[in-house]
């Protein structure tokens, strides 16, 4: 049996990969995907940690809610990206430069 710690390590790596993708890529869709990777890393961590705390299923239960909320978040996010694309004809974040000091 693989130790849950291995899964937690994988989750942490995924989380930082997602974070790096969010911070360094300029494409909005890639940013959205990076956020999804971070949320899925969280799910993996929650499920793995649940193996350490076997007296309840809190971690797994929380995971279901995170999946549902992430879906809702993507729905709103894509709608915003579409409305941005309609105006700018671009999905790059460096095109978003109207608002600044």
């Amino acid at each position, binding site marked *: 049996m693989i130790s849950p710690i291995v899964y*937690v390590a994988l989750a942490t790596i995924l989380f930082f990969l997602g974070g790096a993708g969010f911070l360094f890529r300029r494409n909005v869709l890639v940013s959205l995907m990076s*956020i999804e990777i971070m949320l899925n890393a969280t799910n993996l961590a929650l499920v793995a940690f649940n193996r*350490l*705390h076997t007296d309840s299923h*809190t971690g797994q*239960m*929380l995971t279901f809610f*995170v999946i549902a909320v992430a879906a809702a978040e993507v729905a709103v996010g894509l*709608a*915003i990206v579409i409305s941005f694309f309609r105006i700018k004809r671009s999905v790059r974040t460096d095109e978003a430069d109207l608002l600044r000091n």
Partner: protein
Amino acid sequence: MNLFFALSPFLTLALGALLLMVAEAAAAGNGRGEKVRPGLALGAALTCFASCAAAAGVWFYGVERIEGLDVLQPWLIIDRFTLFFAGLLALGGGLASLLAGGYLPEHQIERGEFYALLLFSTLGALILAAAGDVLTLFLGLETMSLGVYALTAFRRASPRSAEAALKYFLLGSFAAALLLFGFALLYGATGHTDLAGLGQAVKTIASGALSGQAAGPTTLGAAAGPLVLFGFILVLAGLVFKVSAVPFHMWTPDAYEGAPTPATSFMAVAVKAGAFAVLLRVLLVCFGDKQSTSWANGWPAVIAWIAVLTMTVANLVAGRQESAKRMLAYSSIAHAGYLLVGVVATSRDGTAGTSGILFYLLGYTVATIGAFGGLILAGHRGAEAVSFEDLAGLGRRHPAAALPFALFLLSLAGVPPTAGFFGKWFILKAAMEGGFSVLTVVAFLNSVLGAYYYLKVLVYLYMREPGAGAPIATPMKSGYVNVALAVSAFFVVLIGLDPSRSLSVATRAAASLFGG
């Protein structure tokens, strides 16, 4: 029945939002393909005020007398702290919908979903303030945030609105992911997602007594400590983002400037208050161990630095703005800094610090809604007042529109005897008595510095004339906005003239957080 009574502030909002969606769908057309929507704003505002009244009803009936609230444990905590925030957030939501009732038709962007989104967002903020478990906390946070993202993007034809929503959405989701991963790590280290159990377990781990206990996560052993620390840092980063404190404030001016002004006022008021409610609960319930001298209690120093940075940076940058709306955005960041001073003070005297924060939020809510309302009132269709130049000479030409605006700015600046002055007074007093004298002095100097840019608006209102050829601002006419301004002005003056009554309410609410 008891349960329904205790949850009535939440249920009122949910029911009202659903009814508004039905009403919007059933609204009759006027024959030209446009829908006629008389009174959707009124419906939204009445729903919010009903929710506020419900919270007051439960408060005065005595939430301690209501039996059977145990079934909500640990998901929702209905105590006086929650009820205070329920009333405050519902008041903010109601005033914001009144502003929307004037602003949206004037600028021809009225669509019914605005009010439904606003009510659902308010409901999310209420759940956030009542959350006693990571699950409800996350659900409340996302319900609130998703609604506000959509409100920010509401002006679909405007590039600024789309850009603001995009930035807000991306950074907000990123912060939510940080927060959630932090809580996942805390769950791994402790086995708890309920805040109370989490707090107990953190206490055990931090005091190093874990080794002898079989109930703890034995496989983690010594790794539990670093896991808690790392998780806490991520959770704190997520929460600090939501209250828009430096260094996580970058989204605030853009989102505030690009959003339709009623949505901006809602963000400045309800999102901030909801975030402070959950920040207080997480810090004080999970990490508020006065006896412990371990690193788990090291957050006051961190928050103090964040507070100093937030106040100073926001005040310096706010003074350089040309847009009054953007200036108000930076001012809301600065106010987050003053509130964080209160959070630091809670580490010594929890009740005094918390009651100062609650009082401050009350005064801040009405004054901020009023200030944005004044900005809305100063413009009209096709010529929204945004920059300082737009406001030039308004006080001479339209004294009735400029006078309430001036009052709210004075309250935000903290001039006595307004609500804002006493808010700052109670927070600084709590910080001083907690022994944070350097922090108090910095906060005081900052509030003097901050007065500069509020007075700059007053100078434009009363002492400048619009330049030759510049468009001359004409105030719009709207009963909704007038009512919102009147209610806000009433509270600003009332709280300023009789601060002791509001303070005693805030103190009772704060005491319930500490089991009083």
